[in-house]
Structures are given as C-alpha cells and as structure tokens.
C-alpha cells in the first residue's frame, strides 16, 4: 500500500523556509522571483524572445548555486539539460569566475574555491531530439540519487524537443506527465527547477498576440512564470512576473554584463 503523507501547513512552512533561495545577483530580479531569488521546491518558467537573456540567466543561476554556506548560499551543484545547444562553456567560466571573485571580496578570510573543483559542480547533459530528452528525464530520479547535492535543474529549453514529430494533444499529455514526475522530485528533495520557453504568435487574442509557446493549458503548469524582454538600452533587460503562487505581479530591471546578471546602477 502506498503511504500518503498528509502535512499540516505549519510543517510545510518550516520546510519551505528552512533552505535559502538561489540569488540571481540582481536584487531587482530576486524580488520578481520571490524574496531572495529562486525558491527551492518550485518550478519556474522563464519566457522571452531570442536574445532576452534566458540562457544568461540560467548560467548565472548555475554559478549562484555554488555560493558558500558562510555567505548564506547553498554550496550545491547544478544540472544543465541543454536541448538546443545554447550552452557555451567559456561563457559559463566567465560568469562563474566573476561570481566566485565577488564572493571572495565579501569574505575577510579567503576560502578555498578551486576553479577546477567548482567546474566539477556543473553537470551538463545535451539531449538532441525528443527520445533522448524523454529517456534522460526518465532516468532523472536515479541521477538525483547518485548526486544528492544537486539542488538546481535547468532545462534550456523545454520547447525545443517538442518542435516536431508529436501531435499537440500528445505533447500536452507527455509534458504534464513529465512535469508531474519532476514536481514530485522538487518537493521530495527540495530542489529548484528552471525551464526556459520560447514565445509564439497567436493572432486575434485580446491580450496581445505574442504569447508563451506550448499553449494555454501549459501556462497553468509552472508555479511561476517570468517574461524577460529588452529595454531601451541594449544591455538592460526587464522582467515581468506573469503568474505566481505567492507574490503579486511585479516588474524588475537588470542588465546582462560581462560578469553575468547584475543590477542596473
């Protein structure tokens, strides 16, 4: 017989507040995602047109997860599931080094952050095509058992594997099954999942014809949806919270710099 755990909400509150969030290195953006960044135990969807900074944000998060515990970080590892080969390791090293240097500056006594060992803390999977993607997600619980210190899973992007070879109905069914399994992991193991999604066009909608891809049913699925867009200046970005289970819809401003995601001064 399967056991059902009935929690009361005080227990859940203790669990949800016991671990720190993953900061984005931009206070304004942290406020959009939650109080101090991306909360563990939730699925966040990042939307945006090409060049709006989705992948940059993902890389920054992979670096942020390594912030040492003395600075209130998680000192954990990240898993990057790359479906559209957007990942570049040189860019990641740039952001990672900048983030770790910033942490060093905040500490009086230098801590031992080996550059090689910090690179070891990123697990990277390239999945080309729907079959490989599904197969990896199927094996994900096993991967999590073997790597208990992974606290962040990035899927960049969720749309790409579903581009062809599957009907809309089957796609929604499969996506919801995968998300249910993923959500079970996030709650049980208290990890954060960040998905990126592309924009698509639906002509005739009253709220504007450019909407997130994968349809209306999908738009309910993630706990939080954030839309990224460019601002007047080329490096500046806007983030708009489209849906959230715990905070009002706000707008944040940040910029993508050489060092990664930063506040606009």
């Amino acid at each position, binding site marked *: 017989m399967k056991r059902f755990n009935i929690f009361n*909400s005080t227990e859940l509150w203790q669990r949800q507040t016991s671990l720190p969030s993953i900061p984005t290195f931009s206070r304004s953006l942290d406020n959009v995602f939650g109080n101090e960044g991306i909360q563990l135990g939730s699925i966040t969807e990042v939307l945006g047109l090409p060049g709006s900074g989705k992948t940059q944000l993902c890389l920054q998060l992979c670096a942020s997860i390594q912030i040492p515990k003395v600075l209130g970080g998680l000192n954990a590892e990240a898993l990057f599931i790359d479906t559209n080969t957007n990942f570049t390791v040189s860019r990641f090293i740039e952001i990672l080094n900048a983030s770790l240097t910033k942490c060093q500056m905040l500490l009086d006594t230098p801590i031992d952050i080996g550059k090689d060992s910090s690179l070891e803390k990123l697990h990277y999977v390239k999945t080309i095509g729907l079959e490989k993607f599904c197969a990896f997600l199927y094996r994900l619980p096993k991967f999590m058992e073997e790597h208990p210190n992974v606290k962040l899973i990035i899927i960049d992007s969720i749309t790409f594997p579903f581009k062809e070879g599957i009907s809309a*109905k089957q796609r*929604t*069914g499969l996506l919801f099954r995968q998300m249910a399994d993923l959500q079970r992991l996030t*709650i049980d193991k208290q990890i954060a999942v960040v998905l990126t999604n592309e924009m698509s066009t639906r002509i005739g*909608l009253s709220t504007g014809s450019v909407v997130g891809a994968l349809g209306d049913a999908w738009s309910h699925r993630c706990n939080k949806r954030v839309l990224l867009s460019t601002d007047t200046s080329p490096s500046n970005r806007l983030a708009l919270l489209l849906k959230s289970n715990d905070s009002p819809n706000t707008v944040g401003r940040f910029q993508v710099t050489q060092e990664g995601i930063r506040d606009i001064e």
Partner: protein
Amino acid sequence: MQALEVLKISSLSETVLKSLSQNRISTLFDFLDEEITKLSAITKLDISQVLAIRNEIFAKFSAPLANGSSLLVKSIIHKNKLNTGIQSLDTILDGGFPTGYITEICGLADSGKTQLCLQISINCVKQSDSNVLYVDTKGDFSAIRIQKMLDAYGCSPKEMALIMFKIKVVHIWTMEELIDFFKHLKKETIAVEKLSMIIIDSLPCLMFQHLGDDSKIGLTFLNTFVNYARYLCKELNVGVICVNIQTRWVDMDAADLDDEADTTDREHLYIEKKSRCLGKYWSHIPALVIKLDKVHDSNSSDTEQCSKVDVMVVKSNSLTNFNLKCILNICDLGVT
C-alpha cells in the same frame, strides 16, 4: 465487490459458504450471477431459500428510497453552506459553497484561482474548529503565502500556528494516486478529523497527463473520481472544490469577412472564445461553477500592488439567479 459473509443470514452457514467459495462464488455479485438451480445444488438449500437470499441482497444493497419530508429534515439538520468569509462572494453564492456537492472554480492562468483557494481555506478554518484538506497536484500550495496573508491580517504567531495547523496538505501527482487516496478516505483507513472542505488544485493537471492517449483511460479515472468525490461529499458532509482551467480559442468570423470586410475593424474579425477544460462529461458534474476573470485595468495596475478579479456564477443547482457577479481584490492582505 463485497463478500457474501457481510449478509449474516442464518441459512448461509460456514459450511455452505465454504462449498460456495470452492465453486468460486465468494462475492455478492458472483451469487447473483449464478443460476438458481445450480446454487441450490451447491448449497443443498431448496430453491425458495435461495430466492429469499437473493431478495435479501437486493433489498439490502439496492438504492434506498426516501421521501420529500425526510430529505427536508436531513437538509435542515446538516449545515448546508460553507461560509467563504468573503462578503461579496457569499452574497452572490447565497451564503457560501454548498456542502455535499462538487463546486468548480475555473479561470485562465493568473486569474487568482490558487489565491482564492488559499484564502477560502484560511477563512474556513478561522471561523470554526474544522479542518480543510488541500490536495495539491502541482506544488502550488505556498505555506509562505499563507503565513504572509495571516501576518498582513495582524495575527499573532500563536494564532497563525493554530490556523495553519488546521490546513492539511497532501501532494498527489497522478490520477491513480488521487483515486487511491479517495478510496482510503472512503474506507476510513485515512481519516482527517472534523473535515469541512476538500480543495483539489488542480484537476486538469492530473487529467492532462492522459491527453493524447487513445485508450480513453483518463475518462474512466475521471468517472471513478467523481463517484468517490460524490460519496465523500454526502457521507462526510463536506464541500469539494475542484479547480479547473480555461483555454482560449480564436475563431475567424467568416461571415464578416465576406460582407463588410472594409467597414469593420480588423480586430473584430477574430472572435476569442474561452472554454472550460476537462471535456463534456465533466461540464455536467459540478453543482456550482464559478468563473474568475482578471480585470485588466490600465489605470491603476502599477501604482498599487492589487489586482481585481471578476467573479461570476456560471452554473448552479440551487441559486435562482445566476450570472451574478462580484469583484474581488487580490493583494498582500489576501483576497477580499
């Protein structure tokens, strides 16, 4: 199906039951399904006795008869409305959500469905010493949000803890699990004391997992779920609230295109329709359907962190006036 033993009829002695089970007749259904002469031969009872047992089964297990006055007494004894604690909503619902029935809350993404559910569960346990069971299917239950709402309301930490203790949460990820869970509730192998409401947020999240499946197994699950939910509604006298979602469909108006394409604004050529999910079968199930619609107000959206939601009663089995509307505010304080 129930075993023959539950009958407790004197003619069905242990030896008779044994010989019946040797012939693979162990449940009530097996017994009714078998020919009378054969049964008589197996049990060594005469035919009239076998017929008597059959009648006993029918009398005991067929749907019971009731008359109007006894139904009235029943409905007066039981409290039949669950106060939502939100005044404007209570007014259009004529006192609150009905107990003993399934209620549906539907709306588009970000229309405030989860927020309303959280607020209702807070209000419901605040007014009484009853418990609320929150079935969370997409990890949307945020205890942090509940705590913030209570904090903004001015509750002391002790009051908060008391209220939050009475909101029970269970995480369910598949339709099979949901049905299994309800089965346990029915058999009372899992019991929540003083239960007044079960909130399922959200049902499509489970049902969509079976989309694109040729076997239509999803419908079977939905039907089984509805049966259990209805049983629990009546038996425990609780309200069951299901969250449903809406999707938008865009149609091109072909007639307009031919006749007056020049005069009409291009915007009017497209007709946006919103439809409730979960299909035709489900659309008849809930006794009360309320629809949430976010008001897109361009004037006041940025200045205050408050959003307005239009609430409308779409379907009801007891209200004489539908299409009643009210407007709720969602802000830090919660839903008012």
